[in-house]
């Protein structure tokens, strides 16, 4: 043994020297390493882990020499690895299998070194911002290649190559290697598009964590899903929990298990224990991997729980307290998960995998100690224990949406999981000195299920993460031409202004002006106004982004879905170059996703059904965007089975939404689809059917001050039409006066104004009033009642009535004292401190500098109904 050891140590010293001699300009300093490494690997009793380390080093050097990775950074890493190897060996000159094993555990599984590298966060952010837009292109290329476009193939290849380089620059050599492998397989034409798409999805998932400086590691299954076969065993090692280099702690914690083994017990007990636990551990590992794919699956959770429980029991019987401790900690975590006290996420499964590794390790040590060897505890033992025990923050993948940084109470009430009264009670208690967290109070006192709380908390965490994510997305790509135009316009504005200042009338206001002079001044002012409007339009156009990106996302979604649902669908895009304000485009994505899914899931029939109906096999879904009358329209039209009016009515009646037998228009029938919880789907699939999608869609669109309309013909297809305002900030408004207060009505919603005549107005049931407008009867809303404004008139006939129509087509007549003016007003959000005020769409700053309130017609209509009913 001794001779092997000294030879071994000798080689390690050589290794060290070599590492110190690395020279970028002198390649042999690298290649000298190879024979040394070979020797080390050939030495008898070398554990495979160490061998793979050597392989890795060799590979690093090769990659560096071939120019595929920057030499400088490779040197740093090599030195790191080698120093650690050497250090450990120096402290224990006696060759021990366990020591070397701990080397490979402690030193660089590649992922760990990444965690220690400080990624330059600015570089990373820039990289990610660039990548985000390129990823969309990437997807387009993949889809094109699938259709047989060869030019796209070349583009793909270039993209992969650039990506690899960028990963290299950022020092993410594992990712760079991954892309390198992908490149190779792609060049050999062995890479399927599905694998590439999975890679793209993985990239999307990975970027946010990368931005936080925590690159996620690659598992063997990731490589598999991308089609890469990795023989490198250290990749498949399940990585350890986030332990920074634990070289020192390994030595310090040298409590030997051997001391704890009760030698009075029959050794065969231990043998049984070892075999059985190994079996359980194996099961746990497999189920943990299942869990990683689906963190909410009950079956794996139970299986893992049982595994930990059994191991804990066995270990207890044999007095192996270390094993017992870890198993117990892990068991409690799984128990909580089992009882839905919190939901596991991938971060947790990492920890659990690490724990099961730890247990595996411990079992190995028990075995080794039976042979008479003195073994220290695994390096990360304490770490894992404390992490398991401190696991109490739930994480969730539920469907609850939480507004960024909403508080738990709000989330619970908003998602209708908990009645508002209970939340208020709990809040009350908190206010009166109860120091517990809201969640606890709700759970204990009000009996709210922990699962719901877990979901809400999870949503909160997610929302917080989202909010953090948003901080990256701050930039917009603007065509240079627009910037130039804007700068020119501003230059002209400056000139126009100086012309006004220089005008003879202005320069001496005491002198009376001649009509000619006044004319000249008026013209100059008009010119300035013109230029100002131009600047306004140009600056708002800077934020315009084409809908192409969003439509592309739909194309991908449609492709995936059509494969999944086994329906043949052709997604056609029209007008994808139409431009919208950036924030609108961002918010339109989710509703469109809902609608495309609905269209494919419910709207399009199966191929057989289509054939039977005489329709072409391939269904057609059209995504259309166009400008019209100051609005942007986005339509989704399909030639599927259409919406059955009868089914909707039937469902509505059964849900108590309308009385049976009521006569409703087609328009209203389809509007019923937007009710929360409404769905005529016979089955809930995981694609759609829960009845959650459409009301969220409607709300999102209304939040953008838009509207959505449905038309459909049974058997032929449906069309969903979204209308969005073009300009977000300025509207044409009609200023009306009620008493001393002024309000603004958006002109687009005003149908007509009239001065009511004798007999035109009648009261109904003594409560409401209606007005006859030609043939129609329109309800009258008195702003004085609804908004508490004091009108100067009591008789409606003394004032005016403005007929307005809201987004859904409902009309009402607003009674006001006087119409003052029609002007363009700048919409300002009413200060955040007040939250939403019903009936008020926003504030507008008038010429006088005062604030006027802009009325929200739908809100006013709703309020008036409430007022009448009260």
């Amino acid at each position, binding site marked *: 043994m001794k001779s092997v050891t000294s030879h071994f140590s000798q080689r390690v010293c050589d290794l060290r020297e070599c590492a110190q001699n690395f020279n970028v300009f002198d390649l042999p300093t690298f290649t000298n390493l190879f024979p040394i490494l070979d020797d080390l690997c050939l030495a008898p009793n070398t554990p495979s882990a160490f061998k793979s380390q050597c392989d890795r080093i060799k590979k690093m050097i090769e990659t560096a020499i071939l120019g595929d990775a920057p030499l400088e950074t490779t040197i740093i890493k090599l030195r790191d690895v080698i120093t650690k190897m050497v250090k450990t060996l120096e402290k224990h000159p006696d060759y021990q299998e366990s020591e070397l094993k701990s080397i490979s555990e402690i030193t660089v599984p590649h992922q760990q070194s990444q965690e220690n590298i400080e990624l330059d966060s600015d570089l990373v952010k820039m990289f990610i911002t660039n990548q985000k837009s390129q990823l969309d292109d990437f997807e387009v290329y993949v889809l094109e290649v699938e259709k047989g476009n060869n030019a796209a193939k070349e583009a793909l290849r270039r993209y992969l190559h650039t990506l690899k380089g960028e990963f290299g620059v950022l020092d993410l050599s594992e990712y760079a290697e991954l892309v390198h492998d992908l490149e190779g397989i792609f060049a050999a034409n062995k890479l399927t598009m599905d694998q590439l798409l999975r890679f793209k999805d993985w990239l999307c998932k990975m970027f946010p964590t990368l931005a936080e400086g925590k690159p996620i590691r690659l598992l063997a299954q990731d490589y598999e899903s991308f089609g890469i076969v990795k023989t490198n065993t250290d990749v498949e090692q399940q990585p350890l929990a986030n332990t920074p280099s634990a070289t020192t702690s390994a030595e310090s914690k040298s409590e030997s298990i051997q001391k704890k083994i009760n030698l009075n017990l029959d050794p065969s007990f231990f043998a049984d224990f070892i075999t059985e636990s190994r079996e359980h551990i194996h099961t746990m590992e497999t189920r943990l991997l299942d869990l990683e794919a689906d963190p909410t699956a009950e079956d794996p959770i139970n299986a893992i729980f049982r595994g930990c429980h059994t191991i804990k029991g066995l270990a207890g019987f044999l007095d192996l307290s270390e094993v017992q401790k870890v198993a117990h900690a892990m068991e409690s975590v799984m128990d909580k998960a089992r009882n839905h006290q919190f939901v596991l996420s991938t971060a947790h499964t990492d920890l659990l995998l690490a724990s099961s590794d730890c247990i595996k390790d411990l079992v190995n040590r028990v075995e080794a100690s039976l042979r008479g060897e003195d073994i220290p505890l695994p390096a990360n033992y304490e770490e894992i224990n404390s992490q398991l025990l401190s696991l109490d923050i739930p994480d969730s993948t539920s469907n609850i949406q939480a507004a960024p940084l909403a508080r738990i109470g709000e989330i619970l009430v908003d998602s209708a999981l908990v009645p508002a009264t209970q939340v208020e009670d709990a*809040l009350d208690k908190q206010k009166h000195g109860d120091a517990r967290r809201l969640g606890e109070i709700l759970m204990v006192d009000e009996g709210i299920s922990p699962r719901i709380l877990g979901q809400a908390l999870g949503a909160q965490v997610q929302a917080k993460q989202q909010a953090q994510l948003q901080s990256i997305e701050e930039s917009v790509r603007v065509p240079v031409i627009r910037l130039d135009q804007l700068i020119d316009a501003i230059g002209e504005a400056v000139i126009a202004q100086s012309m006004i200042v220089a005008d003879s009338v202005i320069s001496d206001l005491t002198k009376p002006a001649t009509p000619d002079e006044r004319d000249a001044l008026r013209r100059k002012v008009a010119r300035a106004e013109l230029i100002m409007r131009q600047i306004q339009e140009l600056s708002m156009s800077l934020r315009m982004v084409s809908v192409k990106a969003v439509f592309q996302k739909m194309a991908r979604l449609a492709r995936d879905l059509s494969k999944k649902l086994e329906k043949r669908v052709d997604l056609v895009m029209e007008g994808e170059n139409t431009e919208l304000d950036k924030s609108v485009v961002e918010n339109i994505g989710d509703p469109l996703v809902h609608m495309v899914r609905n269209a494919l899931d419910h709207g399009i029939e199966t191929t057989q059904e289509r054939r039977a109906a005489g329709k072409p096999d391939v269904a057609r879904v059209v995504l259309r965007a166009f400008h019209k009358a100051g609005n942007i329209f986005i339509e989704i039209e399909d030639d599927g089975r259409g919406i059955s009016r009868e089914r909707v009515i039937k469902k509505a009646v059964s849900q108590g939404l309308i009385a049976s037998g009521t006569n409703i228009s087609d328009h209203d029938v389809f509007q019923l689809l937007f009710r929360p919880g409404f769905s005529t789907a016979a089955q809930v699939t995981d694609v759609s059917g829960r009845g959650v999608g459409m009301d969220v869609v409607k709300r999102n669109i209304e939040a953008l001050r838009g509207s959505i309309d449905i038309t459909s013909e049974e058997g032929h297809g449906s069309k969903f039409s979204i209308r969005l305002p073009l300009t977000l900030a300025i509207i044409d408004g009609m200023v009306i006066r009620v008493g001393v207060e002024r309000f603004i009505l958006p002109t687009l919603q005003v149908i007509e104004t009239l001065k009511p005549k004798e007999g035109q107005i009648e009261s109904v049931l003594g409560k409401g009033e209606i007005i006859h407008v030609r043939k129609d009867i329109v309800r009258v809303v008195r702003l004085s009642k609804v908004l508490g404004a004091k009108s100067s008139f009591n008789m409606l006939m003394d004032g005016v009535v403005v007929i307005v129509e809201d987004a859904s087509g409902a009309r009402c007549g607003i009674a006001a004292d006087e119409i003052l003016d029609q002007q363009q007003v700048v919409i300002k959000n009413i*200060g*955040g401190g007040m939250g939403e*005020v019903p009936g008020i769409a926003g504030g507008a700053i008038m010429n006088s500098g*005062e*604030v*006027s309130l802009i009325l929200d017609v739908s809100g006013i209509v709703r309020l008036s109904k409430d007022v009448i009913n009260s």
Partner: protein
Amino acid sequence: MATNEQTTMNGPSELGLALAGKYLTFRLGNEEYGLQILKVQEIIRMQMVTRVPRTPNYLRGVINLRGKVIPVVDLRRKFALEDHEDTERTCIIVVKIPQGSADVVMGIIIDDVREVLDIIAENIEETPCFGANVEADFILGIGKIGQAVKILLDIDKVLSTDELKTLKSAAGV
């Protein structure tokens, strides 16, 4: 205390150390209050306030602050003090407070602005319990300047929207 000394017998309390600093003092009715200076953005003269319907009584409305529309709270009404006509000394203190993830700018209407005072830790005491007009929640502590006492307000709590939300849900919106 019999003397005019500014120090107490016991030295600064923990609360005092936490709250020591500069405060903008103002008068509301017969009482004097203090606001942490870092929260104050500016002080402006009383101007036309546009009433916003269906909001709590103490929300007088909104004003135009250099192009931005901000809500304005009538502190008298908020503290349920007796109502008063605005005088020429009435003004609006514009504060910036955190709400959720962002900072929100709001205005508060007060009777009379005084001065900025530096209150040292020794002079700050805990709020005694008095079930008076002002809810104890809103008070950070009591500051002593000479013989006078200033009530140090926790403006974040005063202007928080929790109550607004419960009010809204009560209104059935």
